[in-house]
């Protein structure tokens, strides 16, 4: 009966109730969005790379190196000489090494030059290895393996040919048309930036850059750019690989056999992870070529620490918005009390005690908040599924299931708790209202 009265009472004041519902729904949605993005970013970040002990690149800052090498975000760092890479390869602590050459794109997706070692050693999530849904890894210099989202969105299958473009823009006027790559394999979905990347052989990439011209022309192009005042970063590209190696045949192709002049980044796996700090120190102190080695875990933690402050600020602001909306709810209930005094007095006369009336007002507030919370959850789920592709392509944020975490449940429960508290004000006003005054107010 109490819930019937509460529902009918809200329906009676549907305009104010709907406006209040709207403001609470928007504020809860905002808070849930912030919480979901926060938790998904954290999950997405922590599952992006695992099993890589060190990432080595040119000195440019820990975060820049991490973002460009792992998240495919931002400008790639300056290249490192392959002699340094060879030196790292021969280090007795190093178990395996993955060279990465960055700076090209294919229809908006990042192109990464690497070797078959990448598919063998790169891990994500809880040390999960990459797997192919279709085809094989690199089989010849112009092989390419594409991520799941690339294949999905562009409708690629094994055997299709793709053209790599120079630079990082989604539209490029400098396409390497002379050397189309043939898709040899498609990777399984990982929920990481791997899904949105196109992996090509270092050799094929070098060949594409050389084009019909000689390696000398390629080097000359870079020198001309430098003389014209463009840095290599402005070109967003650092591929100056020598093109003087013998072309292997398809049968004996070994992507590791090719040695480019330089690469952008190197990922290292160590025989003993405990040696990571020591090796990092050694690399950072290298006198042959200035290098920077980062521990992915520490770099992620640093990145998260920076984001953590923003996250706390956003969460705090959203929380304040929710509190404002709930105060609005209490104000709405208090404002309607004047017109409800007679109704409250009648309920008292027919036997509803003061505590029952307190419960009635609180029930109305709770009903509004519960409906708002349910609407917010539905709205956020729809919005997140609508903007999922945009979030992943623009911000590298991969939404994974379940969308709502334990913290979302805690937030909703806290909001219900706050509703209980703020609704006490109008509820107490109803509780204390004199029976006689209400009956004679008409």
């Amino acid at each position: 009966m109490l819930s019937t009265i509460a529902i009918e009472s809200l329906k009676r004041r549907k305009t104010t109730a709907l406006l209040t519902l709207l403001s609470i729904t928007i504020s809860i949605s905002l808070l849930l969005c912030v919480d979901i993005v926060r938790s998904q970013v954290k999950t997405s970040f922590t599952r992006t790379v695992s099993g890589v002990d060190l990432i080595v690149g040119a000195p440019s800052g820990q975060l820049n190196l991490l973002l460009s090498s792992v998240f495919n975000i931002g400008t790639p760092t300056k290249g490192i000489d392959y002699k340094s890479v060879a030196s790292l390869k021969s280090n007795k602590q190093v178990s395996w090494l993955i060279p990465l050459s960055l700076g090209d794109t294919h229809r908006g997706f990042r192109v990464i030059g690497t070797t078959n070692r990448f598919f063998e050693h790169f891990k994500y999530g809880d040390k999960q290895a990459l797997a192919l849904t279709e085809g094989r890894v690199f089989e010849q210099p112009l092989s390419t393996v594409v991520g799941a989202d690339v294949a999905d969105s562009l409708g690629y299958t094994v055997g299709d040919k793709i053209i790599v473009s120079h630079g990082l823009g989604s539209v490029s006027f400098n396409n390497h048309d002379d050397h189309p790559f043939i898709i040899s394999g498609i990777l399984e979905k990982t929920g990481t930036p791997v899904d949105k990347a196109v992996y090509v052989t270092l050799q094929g990439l070098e060949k594409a850059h050389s084009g019909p011209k000689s390696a000398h022309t390629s080097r000359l192009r870079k020198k001309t750019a430098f003389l014209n005042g463009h840095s290599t970063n402005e070109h967003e590209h650092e591929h100056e690989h020598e093109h003087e190696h013998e072309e292997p045949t398809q049968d004996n192709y070994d992507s590791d056999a090719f040695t480019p002049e330089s690469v952008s980044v190197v990922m290292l796996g160590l025989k003993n992870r405990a040696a990571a700090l020591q090796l990092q120190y050694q690399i950072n102190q290298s006198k042959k070529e200035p290098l920077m080695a980062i521990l992915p875990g520490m770099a992620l933690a640093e990145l998260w620490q920076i984001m953590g402050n923003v996250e706390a600020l956003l969460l705090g602001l959203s929380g304040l918005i929710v509190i404002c909306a709930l105060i609005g709810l209490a104000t709405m209930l208090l404002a309607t009390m004047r017109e409800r005094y007679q109704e409250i007095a009648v309920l008292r006369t027919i036997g509803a005690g003061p505590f029952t009336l307190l419960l009635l007002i609180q029930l109305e507030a709770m009903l509004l908040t519960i409906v708002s919370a349910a609407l917010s959850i539905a709205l956020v789920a729809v919005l997140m599924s609508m903007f999922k592709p945009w979030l992943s392509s623009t911000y590298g944020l991969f939404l994974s299931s379940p969308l709502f975490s334990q913290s979302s449940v805690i937030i909703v429960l806290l909001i219900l708790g706050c509703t209980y508290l703020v609704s006490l004000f109008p509820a107490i006003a109803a509780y204390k209202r004199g029976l006689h005054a209400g009956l004679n107010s008409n």
Partner: protein
Amino acid sequence: MNIINNKSALTQCKSAIEVSHVNFAYSKESTPILNIEKWQVSRGEHVFLSGPSGSGKSTLLNLLCGTLTPTAGSIALLGQPFSSLSNRQRDKFRARNIGVVFQQFNLIPYLSVAQNISAAAYFSGKGNSSQKVLANTCELLDRLQLPSHVLHAKADALSIGQQQRVAIARALINSPQLLIVDEPTSALDADARDSFMALLKEVASDSTMIFVSHDNAMERYFDRHCRISELSLPSTTQPPHAVKHTSKPKQESL
């Protein structure tokens, strides 16, 4: 102490209302509005209470309903010390034993007729099943000559006459032993008033009824006529026999 559930005490007492040395003022500084030395209403008696506007009729009804408490003195209803019960006990006692028909009917406008009536049954705590309450509601509406389709109509969609009958149905749904009716005929013409009174007398025949009006012509429907001016005397004077009998008091049927 479970006063309100003590059925034997409620049924054994011959008096429905006993007012003793009751004095009431809205504040300590103001002049007392009511000063009743002694007033008694027998069970089953239908009493007509009249008086000019501002004479204290509604105040006396509010005291009998428990929406006001006396400044001094005591009120016993159905053998229970009503004025000295706690607020909660008084609320429960009223819900179970007193039916009130307000001057403005005071139906809850956003509830349907059925919901208005069943709310009274629900809050009385008598624990009747919803089916039984619905059956009783239908029977009451039938006796009050209301068509069955009004059952699901919102209270504010009803005519004044229909609202008046629904208010009576709500007052009677818990079969109260005491019915208090506050000027429900003030908006009615003579024919409608006669018809209403006949209906009220018929449906409330088992209850003790206090009916308030400033229209003395109504006294013919009742066992006794009490004028508030004679009932309540200035506090400095001793009250005489304040009750004027217009007819022989109805015998209690205990």
